[in-house]
């Protein structure tokens, strides 16, 4: 939600590639000005690396961003090395190994009977090792959220670029459609979309992507509108640079900065909403190990086996927190005027 604070429309930012911007001196002057702003006045410190290196350095100075990156790194390790970390396959039923449904956590180190098999987060209602399922769940959640955001960013960028660059009725029609999508509470719209498409992983991803497209479209459109008025763009226009080249090489790269910040925060929202859909039985279906649906499966047992609800939710929180902290850190690093 904090992204609402972020209005990139009044800030021209430097292109990502360090290609020289044609011959026009005006554009260099602007770039210097931007650099000066970004570096807090010290131009020399930035010219060597450009915006991204400065931003990178700045991010590493933010405590919250570091915490965010640490949280996400652990998660990424869990996801990548799930088969090594998890002691059992996620769907293996262990009834013949001496467990019963919803066994509480058993850690030998903490005084659990040595004769019992060790299951550090206990056993779920179907006799599966809960820790293994939590670990494998990281794969599903991260992948689903990434794909959803990627999809939304690609489509949102296209809509925003077209609307902002061409203006007129195209802009009007596209943005009115976006307004309509934005006038639904996003979870509600996602639920309706998933109902139309049918429940499942792919459709949940699509639903979350569709409801978040307007957010990206609006950000991109407003950057396009401000960049279009910049002198280096007018100069290019005067030099006879074609529209498409202008769009692809001058305008698009400049929209990337706000996009990356919003997209990072967007992954957090996507994780939360995909988990919500799964919790309602509309997203990822059992037996796939996914935190939201794991939580839903055991929600009626919260009074007798709270550990089966607790850890799945904790992991969702962990993920969302990680992306939020990283996103906030990135925003502050790229735009120090907003940071504090």
């Amino acid at each position, binding site marked *: 939600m904090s992204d609402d604070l972020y209005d990139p429309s009044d800030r021209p930012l430097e292109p990502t590639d360090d290609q020289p911007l044609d011959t026009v001196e005006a554009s260099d002057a602007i770039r210097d000005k931007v650099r000066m702003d970004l570096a807090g006045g010290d131009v020399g410190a930035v010219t060597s690396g450009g915006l991204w290196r400065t931003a990178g350095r700045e991010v590493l100075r933010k405590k919250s961003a570091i915490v965010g990156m640490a949280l996400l790194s652990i998660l990424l390790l869990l996801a990548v090395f799930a088969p090594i970390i998890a002691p059992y396959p996620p769907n293996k039923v262990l009834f013949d190994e001496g467990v019963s449904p919803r066994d509480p956590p058993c850690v030998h180190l903490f005084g659990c009977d040595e004769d019992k098999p060790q299951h550090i987060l206990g056993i779920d209602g179907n006799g599966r090792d809960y820790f293994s399922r939590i670990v494998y769940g990281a794969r599903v959640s991260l992948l689903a959220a990434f794909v959803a955001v990627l999809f939304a960013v690609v489509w949102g960028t296209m809509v925003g670029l077209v609307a902002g660059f061409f203006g007129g009725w195209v802009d009007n029609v596209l943005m009115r459609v976006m*307004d309509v999508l934005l006038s639904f509470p996003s*979870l509600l719209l996602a639920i309706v979309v998933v109902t139309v498409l049918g429940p499942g992983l792919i459709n949940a991803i699509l639903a979350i992507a569709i409801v978040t497209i307007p957010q990206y479209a609006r950000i991109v459109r407003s950057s396009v509108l401000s960049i279009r008025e910049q002198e280096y763009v007018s100069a290019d226009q005067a030099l006879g640079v074609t529209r498409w080249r202008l769009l692809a090489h001058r305008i698009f790269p400049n929209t990337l900065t706000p996009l990356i910040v919003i997209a990072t925060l967007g992954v957090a929202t996507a994780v939360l909403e995909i988990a919500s859909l799964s*919790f309602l039985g509309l997203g990822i279906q059992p037996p796939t190990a996914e935190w939201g649906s794991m*939580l839903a499966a055991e929600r009626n047992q919260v009074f007798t086996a*709270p550990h089966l609800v607790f850890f799945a939710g904790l992991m*969702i929180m962990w993920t*969302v927190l990680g992306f939020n902290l990283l996103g906030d850190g990135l925003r502050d690093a790229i735009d120090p005027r907003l940071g*504090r």
Partner: protein
Amino acid sequence: MARFLLRRFISSIPVIIGILALVFALARMIPGDPCRAALGERATDEICDAYNERYGLNDPIHVQFGIYLKDVATGDLGESFRFGVPVTELLIQRLPTTMELAAAALLIAVFVGVPLGIISGYRHNTKTDVATMVGANIGVAMPVFWLGLMLQYVFAVFLRDTPLALPPSGKLDAGLIPVPFYEVWGLPENGFMEFLSEFTLMNSLVTFQWEIFSSAFLHLILPAVALATIPLAIIARMTRSALLDVLGLDYVRTARAKGLRERSVVLKHALRNAMLPVVTIIGLSFGLLLGGAILTETIFNLAGVGKTLFDAITSRDYTVVQGFTLVVAISFVMVNLLVDLLYTYLDPRVRVS
């Protein structure tokens, strides 16, 4: 000012028409046959033909949409396939529960979030600030449904035999039936009266049904807290950053320089301007509350709009999905309109430009 209001109002009309079209289209695209969903085993071909005829499901789609628009304009949202009652009737029964829940959550979010934000912003970079912001970050990241379940566990199981125990679900204790205020006062019964009487807290308060009131109040605490958490955290963060922005401005320095007490500088001079962005965020939080209500009501088993809507979707109750989604979306648009107006009132600069 009047012109601005009018323009702002007119600009929301295309959006509302868009909402109508989208809601209509989506409800038609939900797979499955509503007749078979509603009648189940009893649905034979003849019965379904009659059923489709009765509910106009055999007409071409544009005819259906035309009829739909006309009906909505006259306040007729159709009849629930599943319950066999008009959708407006269902709304009368279910909307107040959600409104009470959302209002309670919003009250908690604002009256806890804003002071936290002020303290945190004023004591910028102190331990209090860091602790509050860590809390706010965690609050934003918490899934509503998880928090709800955890609250249920803590207050209904863990604290079971203590005075802190709270009921984990439902709207009232079993066996309690509130008497509507219009019966107590001998007023005529109509839809509007019924709607008002469904606000259980208000109804029991004005008619002095204390047992009902306290039961309803206790039942409301956990769902309201669960629903409030995310908006609370967002409001706290927003208040903090807005206050920090304002505290750095010249007029605040002037206020301090002329010897005003710190309390009055922060709470009167700075806060007034800092509240502007917070008002916007409160408006946007309303959407979160409505979305969160679906999850909260499902967990706490409250028969509100969210739970009814979700049940209607899973049982393909077209008309209920249509009607409820429409009401939710339009109320969201209206709240945002209201926030815009409030913003204009609070910040004259908006009016001038």
